[in-house]
């Protein structure tokens, strides 16, 4: 079996190709140059080269998504703000599940059993964009969460442009590190 891995290279943790979002890839690239290349502890290290490998990035993204959705839900609930905030967290978790389940089942019916992560991912981000566009135009306090959402998207866009400009250097650094 061929595995796309970096062996005994702790600095490979920062490979841009181990990150999904442009901001994280750019941070990874800047850290890659400064990271240690020799393995000290543990005795042997195998790092998988996969876009979704980085824990910090994924947990942060998940926190951002649930916090944003919880804000939108809390702002729309007819209760006092503290109660709305408490209720909004489990409701946000359920609300995030629903489109995944519906899209997953629809895609399975249309295209058959298999990996639909990319399509579901695009659909989820589109839904977040639509919801944020709506909330951003309201006078609710949740509009700040929506503005933050767009600010993060903008930041990611800028990072993507920088990554594109640095693509040659990044590829070189990746090739040096991975095998």
């Amino acid at each position: 079996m061929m595995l796309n891995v970096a062996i005994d290279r702790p600095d490979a943790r920062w490979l841009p190709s181990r990150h999904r979002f442009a901001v994280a890839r750019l941070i990874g690239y800047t850290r890659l140059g400064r990271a240690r290349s020799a393995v000290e502890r543990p005795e042997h290290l195998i790092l998988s080269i996969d876009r979704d490998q980085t824990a910090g990035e994924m947990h942060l993204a998940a926190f951002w998504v649930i916090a944003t959705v919880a804000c939108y839900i809390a702002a729309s609930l007819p209760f006092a703000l503290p109660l709305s905030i408490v209720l909004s967290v489990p409701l946000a978790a359920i609300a995030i599940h629903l489109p995944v389940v519906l899209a997953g089942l629809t895609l399975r019916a249309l295209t058959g059993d298999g990996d639909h992560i990319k399509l579901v991912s695009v659909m989820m981000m589109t839904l977040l964009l639509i919801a944020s566009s709506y909330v951003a135009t309201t006078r609710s306090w949740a509009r700040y969460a929506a503005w933050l959402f767009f600010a993060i998207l903008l930041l990611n866009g800028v990072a993507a442009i920088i990554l594109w400009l640095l693509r040659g250097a990044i590829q070189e650094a990746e090739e040096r590190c991975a095998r």
Partner: protein
Amino acid sequence: MTRSVWWRRFFVRGVFWRQLLRFAVLNVPPWIEPIVMAFWSTFFLVWGPGRRGVMRNLKVIKPGSLAITNVFRCYRVFWNYAWTIADNVRFKELRTIPDWEFTGREYFEEMQTRQGAILLTAHMGSYDLGAHLFSETSTRRIVMVRAPEADPQTREYEEHHSTDSLRIAFNTRATELALDLLETIREGGIVAIQGDRVTGSISSLPARLFGKPTTVPAGPFALALAARVPIYPVFVVRLGRRRYRLMTSRPIEITRSRNRDDDFARAIEQWMAELERVVQECWFQWFTFEPYWQEQAP
């Protein structure tokens, strides 16, 4: 299909949850995965027998601990369990491998180079993922011995979704299995067995864990004695999201003497010391959902 069979799918060990997990692995974007994990770990905290089993075990591992603290610890066990079973399905379905760190590498390599060995592990971290991955990367043939799923539909589902590279032998037909495993070792293969708890009617040996009497499967020790090979304690511990540590300890050699019980007792003592050390350190990854020390049950 009868009504009782239809409902069985939704029991905690029913096939529905395996299908749901596979569906999630194939559809949930990684950037919302932690939300899904947190939600389902909370959902399974409602599973009374499992929660009580973990909490009862935690009381022994962490004496004097408060019940409320153990509820949160129990959540941590469920959280880790959710990630490890998801990583296992992800590897089977999408060939996504996690990051691996090794400790005790010299023992692990020794095990792979020698002619036949027994790999003794526990219901800890992602033992399934470790076995699947190393069966595909190792030059040695690996046979994993495990208890069959209690639910027939779940058993059928797991057999259908298993990979070809790893041979799984179920510990239901003891005599036949013992001969098969002996043959595997003599051909230079590695037999992986979980040696922390006795399931079903398999033969057992007395042991002590955390100062309390218990039993462990006799199979690995009897096999080691018959095949004259060492036992390598190996633990696959989850360090974080898609990150594992493979820990191999000094092998347990069973030397033949006039008294077979003493030979076993010495080997079991060494195994229990290793197990206790690892469980003490990584209690949040000991996936034992039944009370381990039965005499503790009210």
